[in-house]
């Protein structure tokens, strides 16, 4: 059992929790994830580690409440315990030797991008960050990004905060302004990462994407998280979650991500109804 020490709503759908998980905190590196279950019969949910404190033995997770599983995690308060939490899983993001990097985050993906940007910054790399959201109400972690970025662009789809437009627009502007990046690291919705990769491919800039497919065990056993990368089957949990974005078959990943959409909608509605009843 893993105690929730802190909990905070970052916006209307995104929650941040700090959990006591000393074994995970001891080994965690940016880019790695955990799998957790809120309760005895909950679904196993993969979530990327947003922060870790090795001395206190704590990790921070930031997640969007999307399906029944995340709703269950969100229903737990400070002092309550998660049933299971295992990790750190996946390979850490490679940051060694990078001199100038553009980190592009979208929505809740910014929570995963932040520790990577932070590590690059601490290693002395020049970090440019582009973070995008649908609107002002959904903006998260802006100050945290500002603190570690040499340049920060905040984008919203409707222009209610920062600049109006997509992250790809800002990225292309930065590239055209003469910035020479060793690498672009992008984390966010699949469709966003796909378009970021199309831009960087045009300019021949190496691009790393962090994939978050459907997953059960997280140790390579189920094969549910398989992706086609460079024409080969790869497992996001043991071979990733980071991959060369120019090699990833995004269209296939997008299709596979929809596999259980109907079921999830139904589950979420059921869970919401139950929740409503409890509240009343």
């Amino acid at each position, binding site marked *: 059992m893993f105690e929730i020490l802190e909990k905070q709503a970052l916006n209307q759908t995104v929650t941040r929790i700090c959990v006591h998980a000393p074994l995970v905190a001891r*080994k965690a590196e940016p880019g790695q994830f955990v799998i957790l279950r809120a309760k005895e019969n909950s679904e196993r949910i993969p979530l990327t580690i947003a922060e870790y404190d090795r001395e206190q033995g704590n990790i921070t997770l930031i997640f969007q409440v999307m399906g029944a599983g995340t709703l269950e995690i969100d229903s737990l308060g400070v002092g309550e315990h998660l049933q299971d939490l*295992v990790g750190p899983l996946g390979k850490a993001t490679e940051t060694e030797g990078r001199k100038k990097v553009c980190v592009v985050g979208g929505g809740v993906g910014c929570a995963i991008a932040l520790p990577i940007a932070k590590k690059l910054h601490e290693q002395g790399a020049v970090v440019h960050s582009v973070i995008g959201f649908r609107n002002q109400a959904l903006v998260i972690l802006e100050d945290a990004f500002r603190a570690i970025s040499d340049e920060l662009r905040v984008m919203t789809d409707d222009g209610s905060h920062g600049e109006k437009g997509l992250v790809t627009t800002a990225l292309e502007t930065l590239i055209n302004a003469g910035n020479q990046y060793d690498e672009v690291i992008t984390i966010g919705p699949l469709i966003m990462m796909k378009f970021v990769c199309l831009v960087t491919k045009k300019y021949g800039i190496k691009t790393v994407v962090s994939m978050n497919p459907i997953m*059960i065990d997280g140790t390579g056993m189920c094969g549910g998280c398989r992706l086609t990368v460079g024409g080969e089957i790869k497992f996001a949990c043991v071979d990733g979650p980071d991959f060369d974005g120019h090699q990833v078959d995004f269209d296939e990943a997008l299709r596979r991500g929809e596999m259980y959409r109907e079921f999830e909608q139904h589950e979420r509605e059921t869970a919401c109804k139950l929740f409503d009843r409890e509240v009343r």
Partner: protein
Amino acid sequence: MIKRNMEPRVTAMPTQPAEVRCGNFEEVALGYTLEMAVREAQRCLNCKHKPCVAACPVGIDIPGFIEKVAQGDIQGAYHVLSQSTALPAVCGRVCPQENQCEGVCVRGIKGDSVGIGRLERFVADWHREHGTRDVMEKPALNGRRVAVVGAGPSGLTCAGDLARKGYSVTVYEALHMAGGVLVYGIPEFRLPKAIVKQEIDGLIALGVNIQTDVVVGRTLSVDDLFEMGYEAVFIGSGAGLPRFMGIPGESLKGVYSANEYLTRINLMKAYDQTSRTPIQRSHSVAVVGGGNVAMDAARCAKRLGAERVYIVYRRGMEQLPARHEEVEHAQEEGIVFRTLASPLEVMGDENGWVTGMRCQQMTLGEPDASGRRSPVVMEGSEFYLAVDTVIIAIGTSPNPLIRQTTAGLETDRHGCIVTNGIDGLTSRPQVYAGGDVVTGAATVILAMGAGKQAAEAIDRELSAKDKA
């Protein structure tokens, strides 16, 4: 003097009728009654050579326990079993007895072999229901600590044997539940999870400490375990990564690895209406492969309501690697066997959902290096199966996490951990390994045998330290 039963046929075991069991996940075989068990036990001749004992990977005194059953002393029979196996209720259900003990039984020469597996199962079940809970006394601790990686058949056996010898044993398990393939792979209708839980509870009562949610190779490394004060490590992390065929269409929606399909159903209980884990509700399913895992997946699909379920296997019916009983049960349940058939492509619609599988007919050619006749393509024999789900059950390759994070641990070209072949000692001192991580996908009982041998070797090595 025991009355011998010279009936040439094995006493039949009652089962749920096929048309009933297709609609539930309850156990198929119902087990012997006491009267049936005694009658079957009397078929054993208690012969001098005991070929069955030599053919048992864990060396159970088979005539010994059967003799007790024949005398009606089931508690005594259980006592004999428990000398050699920590999981008799499991082995009685899932061992490929026809290739082991029953395959060499003298009674098999003129008639059926003694139903050894059925008797083992009976004794374990009887003991669970009626036996005196002579909770084995916790042995005095010898002050030595051993870590076991993986709470599957090999790890649990190794842990149990060491705990009985007085070692403090901690088992690290990656999933949220102990049992390994016994809980994520083998379905409820073949091995009820309550039985697995009870056998594991027995180990916990013996003093074995099981830590779930720890992935060795990620959360802790093998080196960490030694730093933590363990004097030996047994790696029984299992087979792991599912293999795919490398044909077009394997990433379409509706294509599962058998591991994923079975894990959703067994570990996550997707068949239960209250489960939060989704599973596709299929109409027509093709399972590729011919082993026990393929049979399990096919029979699960049937129980989830699929009207038509095919087994697609490259060789013939005689070459199916699955246990005979599983094949028979699958046939009774209406699973259609398309043997001597090999998939060419999984076809899908414009939204990426599976619509069918293109296959070709094979014929058996000359024996290959393994001695098995290898399948050869019959030209112009293509055929099409209209299915909405494809489950791939063609085996697994070892999990890379431990070999990637353990310096000095030798592995072969397949990625299997290399051992001395005798007692599981690896290229690293004090590190032993056994089960599928060494052999590639094999059976529960072979993994248990490996765990047992490693436990003996670890005990020899560590107790030699005391004398030195």
